[in-house]
């Protein structure tokens, strides 16, 4: 009885405090809102027509697309963005041969140590090296980029909400602001050194438009439109973020198939084990 009485008193006390000191002032503020209108960014990302080849439970990599995407990273993105968790040897997963990977790695300069005097030098990359960062450190990166820090791209498709479609949308988001929305948002402006991009959470992004038509010349002859390059770089970065994606899905079908089969056998033995008890119930019901 004491516990119940104490409980009731405690319950009334805590709800009372909540209602009188938190809820009532909150409701009062809620009833008299003053919401500044601002130019909201586009939260709904776009997707390419027909989706990506790696989408869905049966998705696969399109190796030609991944290689094109790698070319875009190498010739455009890598000027400012690192890819620090990917090694050159991983490129073999894109369908390159060992010799091609070796040659590719050698085209990159990575930090090294001079074997003669121990000084810091640049040397050609080896397959075991990780992709080098374009900047020595964060201070240098910011100094070159109007005080913005270009993020590492390894995990970018996982580190943003709906990341795959976000990257694809952002690459094509450098449109003109909607005049109607601009009229509704008195504070809207795009400061010098920033660029309007409707998919960026801050509306104005420090990265200038990159995928200008024809900025790369694809070695497989595909026409390098903005949309094509956006698809390809998104596919490449999806692979970079999760190289095990396709293997994971394929393993998943095998595991689920096995588990469902085991579940079926388990269910059948459950039915067998309980058969006599269920029959008892049936017999009794018939007797009544």
């Amino acid at each position: 009885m004491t516990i119940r009485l104490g409980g009731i008193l405690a319950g009334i006390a805590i709800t009372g405090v909540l209602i009188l000191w938190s809820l009532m002032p909150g409701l009062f503020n809620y009833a008299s809102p003053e919401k500044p209108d601002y130019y909201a960014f586009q939260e709904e990302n776009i997707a390419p027509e027909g989706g990506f080849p790696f989408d869905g439970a049966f998705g696969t990599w399109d190796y030609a697309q991944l290689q094109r995407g790698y070319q875009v990273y190498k010739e455009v993105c890598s000027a400012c963005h690192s890819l620090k968790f990917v090694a050159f040897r991983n490129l073999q997963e894109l369908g390159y041969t060992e010799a091609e990977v070796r040659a590719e790695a050698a085209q990159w300069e990575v930090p090294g140590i001079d074997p003669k005097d121990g000084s810091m030098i640049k040397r050609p990359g080896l397959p075991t090296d990780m992709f080098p960062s374009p900047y020595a450190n964060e201070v240098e990166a910011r100094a070159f980029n109007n005080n913005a820090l270009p993020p590492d791209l390894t995990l970018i498709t996982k580190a943003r909400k709906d990341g795959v479609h976000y990257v694809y949308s952002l690459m094509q988001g450098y449109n003109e602001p909607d005049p109607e929305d601009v009229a509704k948002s008195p504070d809207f402006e795009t400061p010098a050194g920033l660029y309007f991009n409707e998919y960026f959470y801050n509306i104005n992004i420090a990265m200038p438009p990159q995928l200008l038509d024809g900025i790369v010349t694809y070695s497989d002859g595909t026409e390098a439109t903005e949309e094509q390059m956006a698809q390809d770089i998104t596919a490449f970065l999806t692979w970079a973020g999760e190289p095990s994606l396709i293997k994971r899905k394929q393993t998943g079908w095998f595991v689920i198939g096995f588990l469902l089969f085991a579940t079926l056998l388990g269910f059948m033995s459950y039915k067998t084990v309980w058969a006599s008890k269920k029959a008892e119930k049936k017999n009794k019901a018939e007797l009544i």
Partner: protein
Amino acid sequence: MSFAWANSYEPKNDFTKWLDEKLPLPRLVYNAVGAGYPVPRNLNYMWNFGVLAGFFLMFQIITGIVLAMHYSANTEVAFGQIEHIMRNVNYGWLLKYAHANGASFFFLVIYLHIFRGFYYSSYKAPREMIWLLGVVIFLLMMATAFMGYVLPWGQMSFWGAKVITGLFGAIPFIGEPLQVWLVGGYAPNNSTLNRFFSLHFLLPFVILGAVILHIWALHIPGSSNPTGVEVKAESDTVPFHPYYTAKDGWFLGLVLSIFAAVVFFAPNALGHAENWIEANPLSTPALIVPEWYFYPFYAILRAFTGDLTIPFTGIVLIEAKLLGVIAMFGSILLWFFLPWLDKSPVRSGSYRPLFRIFFWIFVVDMAALFYLGGAKAEEPYIVLSQIATAWYFLHFLVILPIISQIEVPKALPFSITDAVLGKKEPAAPTAAEPAE
């Protein structure tokens, strides 16, 4: 312990006879989860989640031990070490995703297990100790899961740790030194990561110990059942093995199939994208929220937005933050008092018409708290979470004691056997066995 008609263990060959004399471990297992444990025959599928919780505890311990072999608790390398596991360790991606989603499934089955307890009043005498130990296990799980989420050292890891350890700073007088002592600094740092890793490794074994006590306490009165009527005769029970091992077995297969679907096809669906960004103490995420299984309690924490003041004087008695902390811890600690708050002699919600209505309102309330805990801290979510929080406390502290006093329960079946075999002659409600 157990019932007079329980099967007794008979060692079959010379080795088991020898072992039974020296160390009767097979006898212990036989009596605990074998044919030697008689269980009510009428358990429904809500009684499967205890075994599932035990399975996920072992699953987390095993995947966790293997992950620990590849992990490194140092803020300089921890984030990269997770990528090492994802990329370079054979099937490391599977281990990582299985462990992260395993925590979610562990909590999912635990919540269903707890709500089974709420509906069928599993906490009532003579099973109070099982319930109390269960609440201890749940608190240990929360601590373990929280510290585990810090280990990848992503943005949510860091900022989640900062917010949750900051709660201790709300305690008057000793709060700030206590927080610094717990964290090992003024903000989460390498010392924090090291001690969290150490405790995250230790606590699962403490949970295992508490689970053994939980099962021990269970075997004294035996399992409860959906009628809430105690076992009266042998015909009310079946041996745990093979009857419930078979039932738990196939159901485990079903749950594991769903688990596999999440691990292999949507492993990041229950997580936060922010945590794939390395921790950066200089950049605060727009929205700091814990993992989904903490949402209801996070909603309760955030519901208290106003300081408790003496009206018109501006004197602050208790700050809003401390109120939130008290309410959040109180919301779980009050479960310890549940056996004594609800004094209705009838256990099963199925025979308690008034209780049943409020039980389902409470389920809706809890679902709302789950949603609101993950929502942005803006209107209308704040007001809604305040209403839902108020209802949470009213339900346990005011409504349950009152309805247990005024409710007229439905007639109970005379026995489990009658309930199963459909005998049409219910005993009068007064004849119901009191819960005392």
